[in-house]
């Protein structure tokens, strides 16, 4: 599965990634609307979805699914805005802003990685076996 990998030690907290992300998806330069978040003080820490998929089983309306490339995506049309996925994300990488009634997350588009001056973020691949969601057909014997 494709995901946005990170190396905190290379991050210089410049905020370029946040800026690119929020401008791309919300037409606004506002780190609160970025799918990737960099800690502003102290040691650099990049917080971004690793596509583990735990949120998939939390969603009450199955609005969150993994696509063919392994990216976990939210179908905002059917999302009911409960934000359980935000509270249950093991890494706190599911994002929410009060201007919107749906959460948002990194879809590993790679735009931020292209602009990162130090290579602290980059698109990578890992085994599909690491997906955390349940196989419903198996669970319900279908």
């Amino acid at each position, binding site marked *: 599965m494709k995901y946005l990998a990170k190396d905190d030690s290379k991050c210089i907290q410049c905020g370029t990634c946040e800026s690119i992300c929020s401008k791309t998806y919300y037409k606004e330069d506002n780190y609160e609307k970025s799918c990737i978040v960099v800690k502003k003080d102290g040691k650099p820490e990049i917080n971004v979805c690793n596509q583990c998929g735990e949120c998939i*089983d*939390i*969603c*009450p*309306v*199955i609005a969150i699914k993994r696509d063919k490339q392994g990216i976990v995506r939210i179908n905002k049309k*059917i*999302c*009911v*805005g*409960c*934000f*359980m996925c*935000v*509270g*249950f994300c093991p890494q706190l990488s599911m994002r*929410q802003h*009060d201007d919107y*009634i*749906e959460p948002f997350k990194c879809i590993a588009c790679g735009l931020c990685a292209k602009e990162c001056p130090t290579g602290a973020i980059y698109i990578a691949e890992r085994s599909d076996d690491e997906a955390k969601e*349940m196989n*419903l057909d198996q*669970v*319900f*014997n279908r």
Partner: protein
Amino acid sequence: MDIKRIKEGHKLLAEYKYELGTIERGYTNRTLYVNISDNTIASKAVTPMMKEKFVGGKGFGLWYLWNATTPSTKWDDPENEIVIAGGPACGITQYAGAGKSLVCSLSPLTDIPIDSNVGGFFGPLLKFSGWDALEIQGKAEKDVIVVIDGNKGLVTIEEAPYEAVDGHILGEQLTEMYADNEDDKRNVSVVTAGSGAEHTRMGLLNFSFYDPRRKVTRLKQAGRGGIGTVFRNKKIKALVVKFSNVKGDLNNAYDQAVINKTGIKYHREIHDLDHLQNNMRKIGTANIIEVMDEYDLLPVMNFQYGSHPDTEKIKSTVFIEKYITQGVQDGCWYGCSMSCAKAADCFKLKTGPYKGQRVTVDGPEYENAAGLGSNCGIFDPEAILELNFYCDTYGIDTISFGTATAFAMECYERGIINKEITGGLELKFGNFETAVELLHQMSRGEGFGTVVGQGVHRMKKLFVEKYGADPDFLFDIGMEQKGLEYSEYVSKESLAQQGGYGFTNKGPQHDEAWLIFMDMVNNQLPTFEDKAEALHYFPMFRTWFGLYGFCKLPWNDIVPADNKYTDEPAKVPEHVQNYLDVVYGVTGKRLSTEDMIRESERVYNFQKIFNIRMGKGLRKNDKAPYRSMGPVTKEEYESRQERYDNQLKEIGYNPEGKTTEEKIKVLREYREDQYEKLMDAVYKRRGWNSNGVPTIEYLKELGMDLPELIEVVKDLQ
């Protein structure tokens, strides 16, 4: 029969088109009135007075019911109503447990108002369709369904002859019929009863929600007080609501950001702490089966005992490991991260009309495991699941069924009734085959099942009048009060909980107060005044959930990590504040904890006066069966001899050399006197006189000195 043919059998009786309307700060400001006698459908305004004094939910239900009925209205009169209302917070999706509907009606068991709090999608979808409440009056000639299409703005009353009656089939049929496709099924919610509700007084209502993972229509129950019986007596087969396009902001909240923030904080708390506390996400309320046993509080064999070695066989881990599907999102409304609506999937039925079929069983909740299991002496998880399933689909309240069956079993074992009377049924404790046959008889409307289905109150009368039973003994062991069966906790050793059950409005149901740990285990309520304070605060606090459309469980079935360091851990202060914040977010009302209690006091006292108006609600109606207070029989005394002997010593009576009968008598005098003293203290704290009547002065203080209420209480001051 296929769905198309079933639908072709419908005959349209009435059609009503309406403007879709808007929701403002949680209110649509309209109620949908449907009369199935003359097939009128109308919109009624929700007035500012209703919002101010009754808030919503149960408050609205009781207000409409009061206006629809008179002191002489009986449950089966056409003017009796079934009112379903969510409350202003109902339908928000960010805070756990905010999809509740409150159902009110005059009860066939108690002849006074009953209210029942139920999950499922009906309440929220009703609101999004443009209605704060649904008020149903009248009685149809033939089976009807009422269909509300919240996208088209259309309400219809239709004769529906071919649909099934049993809840699990009818729920599926109507979901299939009214959904456009598989994805649309979650936008349909159905209310049904079941075949057993037709032949008993303990009928319940099933409220459905579609489970997109299991691909089945799940059922949540408005269980208590026989509202399903009223439903079928009115010849209503089902209510259907359909609304597509649910989003998280449809309540048009005053400040959505506050709700989001509070909701996400709570989701995180569940994520971090549930597995360390109650395991609600794994097994729901059934997590306490073994805890109740450990503290001697699990009802065993008609509340005679509080524990049993075989509880091991039905403890929560047995259900978790073997039956309940794990890891599936199980909220009964969107956003419920507590997710306690558990289910056993592919469960193969062993008896009855659906024998051999594999079904999804909604449950077991604690009350089911205790009522259908231990209280009937049944310690078999599969027996509990099967009884649970049939209770739901037949539309029978598991609590009333469990307590009534346990009573009948004890009467049988003591020779008060025999095989001739039971129609050949060997009604012994532990006999699952007999218990389930009683249920099947309730469904078919035959045999001794229909006698048990009348409830403990009427069985007592029958056994005395027809079979010569000792009325005093039956009064002692028949676990009912005001006509309603006790829910499944042994209150014998907690005076506060005896009051928690005994001084309730609707009858002995623990939704008003559950004080056993505070009182008996943690000794936090040593004086009568302490107990009275708790028996004021908690019933009022817990009433409040039903005004707004909340579930009580997320309040204290998990607590913040630092809760024990707060001033009043039993109140869970942080969660109380969460609710005040969410209500502020929805309505814009900034309430204090005092305001919150006051809102409840208004509705609570309204219900109290409603009871008085209907001929109950006075001190004599709060008298409780002695089994709820202490040992009735020799065996019960001797099972806890040390505890009882010690209590006798504490009150200055030397048990040495005394017979058990002598000791029972002295203990009983003491405990009954304590109960009376507690009643005095609680009535005083609640603003009532010694007869249990709210004083006019107190009603004025509450702003509830409405002329119609004063009329009821003025001669009882």
